């Protein structure tokens, strides 16, 4: 008898778990306002170079654009095919991280909202998209001479990444590290001048 009542009580909890086919709009709004879905071009470049086995790049641009250019090992999932029935199963990679990208981050963000609603997990957006990819990874800009060491390190990484992705040759003496000029305040003489 006790078991019967326990089973019935179990039913009380069940409906909570069941309706999870699509994400509750309220939960979706909370997810939308979190900036944690964004990954930077540097992070992605690093993951691609290191052959991160968990990374799946998802290009949400059109098939024609994808044909012309795409990131390493990216799969093409145009935004307009995202809501098709097979999309969810096609995009369900076990515990892998999917990074959506487009020209910038408008279309990829829209794709993210829809994918999230459909219940996909571990999805991210490449901040700045391909435009920023070119600006930071393919054609990195040298930091100002007064920049911090961290910025120079980042620049060195980006230069290396640029070589990696464009297939150029590496020239080591180009390293900006050698050019760092340390400027320090002039030591003021303790007793100076006077009259």
């Amino acid at each position: 008898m006790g078991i019967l009542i326990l089973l019935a009580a179990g039913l009380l909890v069940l409906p909570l778990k069941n309706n999870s086919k699509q994400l509750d709009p309220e939960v979706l709004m909370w997810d939308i306002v979190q900036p944690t879905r964004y990954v930077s071009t540097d992070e992605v470049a690093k993951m691609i170079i290191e052959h991160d086995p968990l990374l799946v790049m998802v290009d949400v641009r059109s098939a024609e654009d994808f044909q012309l250019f795409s990131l390493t090992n990216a799969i093409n999932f145009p935004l307009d095919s995202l809501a098709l029935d097979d999309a969810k199963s096609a995009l369900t990679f076990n515990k892998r991280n999917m990074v959506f990208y487009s020209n910038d981050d408008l279309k990829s963000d829209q794709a993210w909202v829809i994918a999230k609603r459909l219940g996909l997990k571990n999805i991210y957006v490449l901040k700045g998209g391909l435009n920023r990819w070119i600006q930071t990874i393919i054609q990195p800009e040298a930091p100002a001479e007064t920049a911090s060491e961290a910025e120079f390190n980042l620049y060195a990484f980006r230069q290396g990444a640029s070589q990696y992705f464009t297939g150029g040759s590496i020239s080591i003496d180009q390293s900006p590290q050698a050019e760092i000029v340390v400027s320090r305040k002039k030591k003021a003489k303790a007793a100076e001048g006077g009259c």
Partner: protein
Amino acid sequence: MHVHELNPKKTMVTMIIFVIVIIIGLVTLSKPRLNYAITPEETVMLAGSEEGFFYPYELEDILDKTIDTIVLVDIRNTFQFGRGHIPGAENISAVELISKENIKRLEALKDAGQVVLIYGNNLVEANGPYMLLRQIGFDNVKVLMGGYSYYNVWKDKLGDSYSDDSYFIGNAQYDYAEVAKGSSVSNNDNGAPEPKANVAVERKKKNKAVEGGC
């Protein structure tokens, strides 16, 4: 021999409790407070259209009060709002916007034929909340292109922004295939950006708020 057969009363009691508990379960079955009014397919269509995008130059008509059917909502945080906002805007965060009271208010505004124009620092920041509000049925919600940062640059000459393109995002700024080939990138490249690809932008025709007269 079964215990129940010896005690039919006990069986009855058990059955009754069983049924009662199930009924309670059905009654308290948690329903989400908000529901999707459009399908994922329709949301994809929404993402592909610019129908809900509000052009910065259209703000002029709100600011000089030619139009009074638009409620401006700033979804940035209070600190940013305090440092500067579009005149007449209310500061309601995206999450607050779907609170019980605000949903009621949004419904009232929708019934009254009022447009709710939301903005963040840029378009992408407000685009997610805009898409969500549309998905739960508020088709009177629009989103400001360029966001506050664009407004802030152009606020004294909003009308002139009609002929500016920079708030149109989503386009390729490079010929990716060409740039990524590397042939054009030399080792001592100083990162000079490629000339911006010529992108033809379509925009709504500007309709003058006050036209004609004699």
